[in-house]
């Protein structure tokens, strides 16, 4: 297995974490990080642990050496951007409209409602749902669909709602499920998913 070495000496926080994150995203092998202060050591260790990696810390070269092995333990939390080391199959659902398909709006809305209901009841629900454009109405003004999404959230799904879109439709105060997110986080979540279903 390949090994990547990242020298973070002389770098100010949060740079060591960002370089570690980048390295983990680019390789499936072990990433070894050298830092020269305790804050950077603790930060990189926390980041890697939160991302579900195994970390060994040792003193070396006047600083600390962190040996980071991806994916043998489950992530402790549901980190926003720490998906680099997660294992298993992750499904993301990307919803950019209030309705499924382009036919009669009424039919499309009914289809969307049953899709979200079925997802909430499914044996293997999606791990991430992203709501964009008029899709944000499904987690704000539409109480029925919001209820299904809330259920998905309670079952552990990460629900990301586009903040720009909420602003655009003036719905920021009316969020019933999920949390306000941004393009950076959404892009990271979609890129980290093993497969994405677009509706």
């Amino acid at each position, binding site marked *: 297995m390949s090994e990547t070495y990242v020298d973070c000496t002389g770098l*100010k*926080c*949060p740079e*060591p*974490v*960002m370089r*570690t994150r980048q390295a983990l995203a680019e390789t499936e092998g072990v990433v070894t990080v050298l830092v020269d*202060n*305790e*804050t950077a050591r*603790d*930060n*990189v*260790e*926390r*980041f*890697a*642990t*939160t991302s579900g990696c195994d970390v060994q810390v040792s003193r070396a070269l006047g600083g600390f050496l962190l040996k980071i092995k991806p994916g043998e333990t489950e992530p*402790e*939390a549901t*980190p*926003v*951007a*720490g998906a680099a080391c997660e294992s298993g199959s992750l499904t993301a659902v990307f919803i950019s409209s209030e309705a499924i398909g382009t036919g009669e709006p009424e039919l499309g809305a009914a289809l969307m409602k049953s899709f979200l209901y079925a997802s909430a009841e499914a044996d293997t629900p999606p791990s991430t749902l992203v709501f964009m454009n008029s899709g944000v109405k499904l987690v704000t003004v539409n109480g029925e669909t919001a209820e299904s999404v809330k259920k998905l959230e309670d079952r552990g799904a990460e629900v990301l709602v586009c*903040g720009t879109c909420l602003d655009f439709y003036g719905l920021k105060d009316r969020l019933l499920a999920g949390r*306000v*997110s*941004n393009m*950076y*986080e959404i892009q990271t979540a979609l890129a980290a998913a093993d497969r994405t279903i677009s509706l």
Partner: protein
Amino acid sequence: MNSLPEETAPELLSSALSGEDAGVYLLSERTALVQTVDFFPPIVDDPYTFGQITAANAMSDIYAMGGKPLTALNILAYPCGLEVNVIERILLGGHDKVHEAGAVVAGGHTIEDDELKYGLCVTGIVDPAEMTSISGARPGDTLLLTKPVGTGILSTALKAGLIDEDGMRDAIDSMVELNARAAGVLSGYDLGACTDVTGFGLAGHLYEVACASEIAAELWAGEVPLFGRVLEMLSMGMATEGQARNRSYTEDAEVVTAGGDEERVDCMYDPQTSGGLLASVAAPDADRALAELRAGPCPSAAAVGVIRERGPRLVIRSGRGDR
């Protein structure tokens, strides 16, 4: 900086060199001048918001001393090539905040520098009889905090691109908020010490209060309100170097924590920008003061500790009952 000569003028009632929030200079029996200066690089992306936060932060020292700001001078360092529009927005944010405080911008000074920095030098007045300081804490006082903590961790996460400004909206709104109304509420009660929570973090500023007042402080980490996503961002490795500096600065502190609270204790050392007021209030007044703060300007205000006569200068516990 122990090598600097000590100031001994009798009119100097309080000096920032001795750890106070601002310098206080007696002009007449009922009037003293309060002066403070603060500047730093941007901690949010939006220039207008940065200007507002910087001004709120600078004037906070005046409120912590029980004073009222009168005039402010801008200090600006900007890299050549920065758009004029950005500079205007920063200065407008500062101007609007100064005016909200009932003060005026009387001028300023600008230089070119590699990194953008903005700040203000603020002058205010205080009645010496009403002045609050960090040295007045009394055994038995309850410690009240008027804003949540975690702005250092969130600003680092913003710099790292892990969150955007919408993801830390509660912290930004809080940093923009003046401590004027909080100070107004507190002044109605029996106050011991008062300070504002900034670069030394909550634990660092409380440690200063404890040393200046020559008493022992106890901080309940589990009772301290945190902004949303602070713990999440800490677990993503978003602690600042300032946090470690603050921890080593308070190395006398006996830290007692229950299991699993290590991260909350870390937050006690997180450097704050435009943080809340930390006040020691006589115990019989504390509940009413807290209720008035919560119903009014500080919905997140909390009782976060107690002052004791004896013990280590600072003890950090998980909660009020933990021993």
